[in-house]
């Protein structure tokens, strides 16, 4: 036995949150212990890696000996000693801690392209990226390929923008290349603001050089020598790793003047977003970089003609750019074999909600929703059954459980009134109220509206007020029609993508779950049991132990009852806050 032993500790956001740093430190300590056999410690390479995907099982640790990889789940520092002793020294994996079966199922149907090195390499080490073939394609392109050839290659690959709209990337580059002007810019849009979405974050944290290389190639294609990464300030780790990667790239001569020794200069500047969702819209993003108030403007002119400081500008989503180096390394033909006729390649999704295996997944376009949820996701949480899947974040919509066999690609989702979007995928179960979900997303877009155009600024506010009323039991006949009319007017009348898509969560839930709205309005009931105001709380006498916890928690003094005797809720006093339901340990408070 003389091969290397790799130990990789997941230090993506979820890994760190679950205690990855302590686990890594523990490995450091254990492996540098003087009792450790010298041949073992010298062969051991242990390091942090980016998101490994299965976030719900973090901290995940990979141990790879002679190409044989085992993954441990829920690793705690105190487990490290035994893993080292049994697995690394003695060669026998600690079976009860392995994540084998669910992990295998989680990974089987995935197709990792942009995430292929994420969770494998150390994101803070440029050499790790280079050793996996990094910067080879950019060097080849810049030193031996014509920009037109490169653009042709990207067009052949069929890559479409991963930010949501799905505009063909090659075409965008071509227009920018042909746009008149000496100065052009390329911007990486990493202002990922959808609630529950963390694809770009994982890519930048797990493999920041991928973005840099993608930008270098894009810059070469359009003839730019200045790039910006517009990234959320709320992603400090991604920013730090990106800064570090840019520094390393500059030191290597991959950024700066005469990069790769060729006649091209290119550098990247990081611009931090100030927390406005609308700045993900490209014209607002440009305004923000220029130091203006982040408000979209009317298009045309499109940024490829008149963008940052009035110069032709290409704005690509982080995931789009992350695809570029792989397309160039493996060829457009390889890429276009993945996915469907119209939607090529893979898509990264942040799979969250009431699902067993929540985390970051990458699947080929055209996979069915059923495969994602039941194979990759491992089905719903115990005792719950699927109601709908929300995709595309606040601009997207809900696909009902009956349409589970829908193909996940731009066209099919659009047909269902939904969008691929940037990649949020929220699994909703029987205990999720669709009215409340719609209200949640509308609340988000409403408060993120920049305020420039009337339909979005005021229309979303009024829709939200109606939804608020409905969830509070104050819905009136005609509310649904108002929502539909206003929603359509906002869609048609708003200035930018934010406003044009803001009513989608409402309109799509109205389309598939109209009965839930009607139940709220006419029957004053919330079928999912979420909207407290519509619920009746009562105590099941048979199981009530009389512990008095509910009576203490009740803020309105509605609960009475003697110690160790069943309690009683006075409905006249009950304010339907749900505190009793939350504190009861015996499930004796019911709501219906």
């Amino acid at each position, binding site marked *: 036995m003389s091969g290397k032993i790799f130990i990789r500790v997941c230090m993506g956001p979820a890994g760190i949150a679950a205690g990855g740093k302590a686990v890594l430190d523990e490995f450091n300590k254990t492996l540098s212990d003087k009792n450790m056999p010298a041949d073992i410690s010298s062969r051991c390479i242990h390091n942090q890696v980016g998101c490994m995907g299965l976030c719900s099982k973090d901290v995940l640790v990979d141990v790879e000996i002679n190409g044989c990889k085992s993954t441990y789940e829920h690793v705690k520092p105190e487990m490290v000693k035994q893993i080292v002793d049994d697995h690394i020294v003695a060669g026998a994996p600690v079976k009860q801690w392995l994540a084998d079966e669910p992990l295998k199922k989680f990974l089987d149907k995935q197709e990792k392209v942009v995430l292929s090195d994420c969770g494998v390499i150390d994101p803070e080490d440029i050499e790790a990226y280079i050793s996996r073939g990094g910067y080879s394609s950019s060097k080849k392109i810049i030193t031996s390929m014509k920009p037109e050839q490169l653009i042709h290659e990207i067009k052949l690959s069929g890559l479409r923008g991963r930010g949501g709209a799905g505009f063909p990337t090659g075409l965008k580059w071509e227009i920018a290349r042909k746009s008149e002007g000496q100065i052009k810019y390329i911007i990486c849009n990493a202002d990922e603001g959808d609630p529950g979405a963390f694809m770009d974050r994982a890519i930048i944290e797990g493999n920041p050089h991928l973005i840099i290389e993608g930008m270098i190639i894009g810059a070469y294609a359009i003839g730019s020598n200045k790039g910006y990464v517009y990234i959320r300030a709320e992603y400090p780790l991604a920013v730090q790793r990106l800064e570090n990667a840019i520094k390393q790239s500059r030191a290597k001569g991959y950024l700066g003047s005469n990069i790769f020794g060729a006649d091209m200069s290119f550098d990247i500047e990081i611009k931090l977003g100030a927390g406005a969702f609308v700045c993900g819209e490209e014209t607002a993003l440009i305004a923000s970089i220029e130091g203006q108030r982040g408000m979209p403007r009317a298009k045309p002119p499109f940024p490829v003609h008149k963008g940052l400081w009035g110069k032709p500008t290409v704005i690509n989503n982080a995931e789009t750019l992350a695809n570029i180096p792989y397309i160039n390394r493996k060829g457009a033909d390889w890429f276009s074999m993945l996915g469907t006729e119209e939607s090529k390649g893979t898509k990264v999704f942040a799979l969250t909600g009431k699902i067993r295996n929540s985390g970051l997944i990458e699947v080929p376009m055209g996979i069915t929703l059923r495969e994602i949820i039941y194979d990759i996701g491992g089905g719903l949480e115990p005792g719950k059954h699927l109601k709908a899947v929300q995709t595309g974040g606040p601009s997207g919509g809900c696909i009902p459980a009956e349409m589970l066999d829908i193909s996940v690609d731009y066209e099919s989702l659009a047909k269902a009134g939904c969008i691929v979007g940037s990649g949020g995928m929220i699994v909703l179960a029987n205990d999720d109220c669709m009215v409340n979900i719609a209200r949640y997303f509308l609340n988000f877009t409403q408060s993120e509206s920049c305020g420039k*155009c009337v339909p979005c600024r005021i229309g979303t506010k009024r829709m939200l*007020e109606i939804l608020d009323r409905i969830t509070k039991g104050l819905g009136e006949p005609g509310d649904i029609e108002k929502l539909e009319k206003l929603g359509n007017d906002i869609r048609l*009348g708003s200035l930018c993508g934010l406003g044009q898509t803001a009513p989608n969560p409402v309109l799509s839930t109205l389309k598939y779950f109209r009965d839930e709205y009607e139940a709220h309005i006419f029957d004053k009931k919330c079928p999912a049991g979420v909207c407290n105001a519509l619920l009746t709380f009562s105590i099941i006498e048979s199981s009530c132990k009389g512990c008095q916890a509910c009576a203490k928690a009740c803020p309105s003094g509605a609960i009475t009852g003697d110690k160790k005797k069943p309690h009683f809720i006075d409905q006249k006093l009950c304010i339907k806050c749900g505190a009793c339901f939350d504190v009861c340990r015996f499930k004796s408070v019911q709501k219906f």
Partner: protein
Amino acid sequence: MKMKEEKIINFMINDMPVKAKEGTSVLRAALDNGIYIPHFCYDKRLEVYGGCRLCLVDIKGGRKLVTSCTTAVQEGMEVYTETPKVISARKTVLELLLVHHPLDCPVCDKAGECQLQDLAFKYGASEGRFSAQRKKDPERLDAPVVQRNTNRCILCGKCVKVCYEHQGVGAIELIGRGFKTKVSPAFEETLNCEFCGQCIDACPVGALNSSYYRHVSRAWYLKDHDMPCPYCGCGCITTLSMRDGKIVRAKGVEGKGQNDGNLCSRGRYGFDFISSPQRLTKPLMRKDSLYSNNIVSSEGSTCNDNPFIETSWDEALDFIAKKMSQIASEHGHEKIGAIGSQRCTTEDNFMLQKFIKESIGSSNVDSAALFGYEKASRSFESVFGQRLRHISWDAPLSADFMLVVESDITSLLPVWGLKFLESKRKGSRLVVADAKKTKLSRHSSSWLRITPGSGTALINGMINVLIREELYNKSAAEDVAGFIELRSSLKEFTPDVAAKASGVTADEIVNLAREYASAKERIIAITACASENTKSSSLFVAAANMAMLMGDGPESLQVPAEHSNTLSMIASGVQAGVNGKNAYEMLYQSNTLRALYIVGEDPLVMMPDTTAVENNLKSLDFLVVQDIFMTDTAKMADVVLPAAAWAEKEGHFISATGNVQKLEKICSSPGEAKPDWEVFSMLIKKMDSRAGLMSFSDVSMEAQLKASSFMARLERSKGRPGFIPVELTIAEEPDSQYPFRLVTSTILQHSGSFSMLSKNLDAIASEPYIQINSADASRLSINPDAFIEISSRRGSAVAKAVVSDEVPEGTLFAPVHFSSARINALTYAAVDGRVPLAAVKITKI
């Protein structure tokens, strides 16, 4: 920049064929063809915004409705502006706006002229489908003249954009986001800006209003009159709203006048000077002079401090006629003179000079323009062989290179100044050579911070480069007289020498000269105002030399006339003739005159070296001042006559652009105040009983004939052009005893000393001040707002110190309008080509 030949697009609006230039928006094309498409956020002066979503139209074959303001016309396009789909979308927008708009129309000043009201009316009542969270921001009444009510705001953004983009200020911004967005200065502080009020006229609803107009009148009781503004040479048309015989509001209206709706703070707020309680209402005579002339016995007079007594017109004019005749017969006609006014009408000035020349027989008529526009015009004439032409309103727009030398155009002729900003925005180069940081320098492509008063050196340095590098127009220049002399005079004046004299680097001068020479359409713009002391005739000569060297015509030098009627005053004969004495000789040289008649001018405040003026006025036997209020000069007079002001009399103005504009009488004058022309008509009759009284139409016809023939002569006359070598000489350089340079000028909110009568303008700028650089202030331990006294060899003044790096080190700046701190007591009067800068020291802190 010459515009390219634009393609004409043919398309249809509502089945009607329409033509428009390529690149025009559908909205603009519709409006130009008389088709109204509702809109809130569109303004032709601004970049399109596309926020109000009201101008939605249906385009045949289009997927959805589009905003007509952001859609360019296309060949064959079929646009429909009022389809059911469009109306439905528009109604939704209006409904959304109205549902939380406070329906406080009964107390809103805008009611009756509110676009939201009108459109709500047009598109039917709101169905009120939505419950409404309304906004409850307090009204902001804390700033002078502008009041804001953000609850009424529909966030069209026009005020923000007109302020930032068009006006170049940026005092307000949209703050917050979504439903909570509002228009406000940063951090919701009190509005502190130049108070042009452009935002108020831009506001389609009642969110922005003028404080003075608050709850004054319902819009439907107002009657509007379009009048030329009484202030600067721009000659803007302001629309005055009248109620019960009083002007209650002034506004700019798109499409009216060359200002096309733009006004500055003076034009929009300064109209109320006419209703000041300080206005003169009756003829006054000095008691002393009555006693000495035995008209009234000193005995029995009450112990009244007032040196004047009220009298009747008849008595006053009799007295004047008698004194004038007496002095003329005792000392000669040439011992009587008069000073005219650049703010009085053509008719007024015409009658003044007629009175002096014909009734008195003297040629001594001149005005303060001698220190301003006349200085420039005559310098120009000496080089080009013809007098200055009037400026062209759009000259900045057609130029691709603009050189502005020591001229704060956006303060002196604010609305014309906007044209420079506009041209810069559209891609022209704007180079500003000025010691003081001005709005133009802030927006310039390049700002050369020259030493105050050194413009002549800068231009001479440029000429040296142009000749040395052979960048000038040889065929045009070399045959002109004086070329050899010019070349040899500036041979040694290399960029290095010029750099030393002007305080910029030699490279900057070389680059500027090259840039100037390589431009296709270049202009040099210089203001010529009597209150500015950084310019001498040499500067205008130097500039004319340079323009002629490049083969450029007289139109390449844009020097605007200072006041509302400067041009016409000169044209109607108020200018020193060959035999007459000029204003300098009359006011500064002792024993020139025995009697002086001053109309609408306040030399004791507005002319340089007031001590000299005061001494001269004191030595007169007889002084008549005819004005609208008791000026400092009037206080020295033997007879003070109350004049009717602008808007109280008929007449004409000629603007700096040469436009003849008619003034209406829309208000009655206070008390017994009379139009100036009428006073002279009466005086002429008093002097010669055979003369008849003239009617206004007679006066006007004669006056206009004289003015127009003079203007026509200007156009035709062409003397021999010739270069005149000049060099920079400064009247008074700072030394160890008087270490500071004092720069004086006019500020944006005031004009002369009479704008002090305006309550509105007084609310914005009421106090005299002295600007001092922060380095000087800290060296001398001068705190902001501390009172300081400054002195020159001629006099001293006290005012508040304003610490500001708008002025360079070693320089103090002070506006001259305020009689309470008579800055002109310190200044220097020079008419000999020397820059009249004064050296001063700070004597008390």
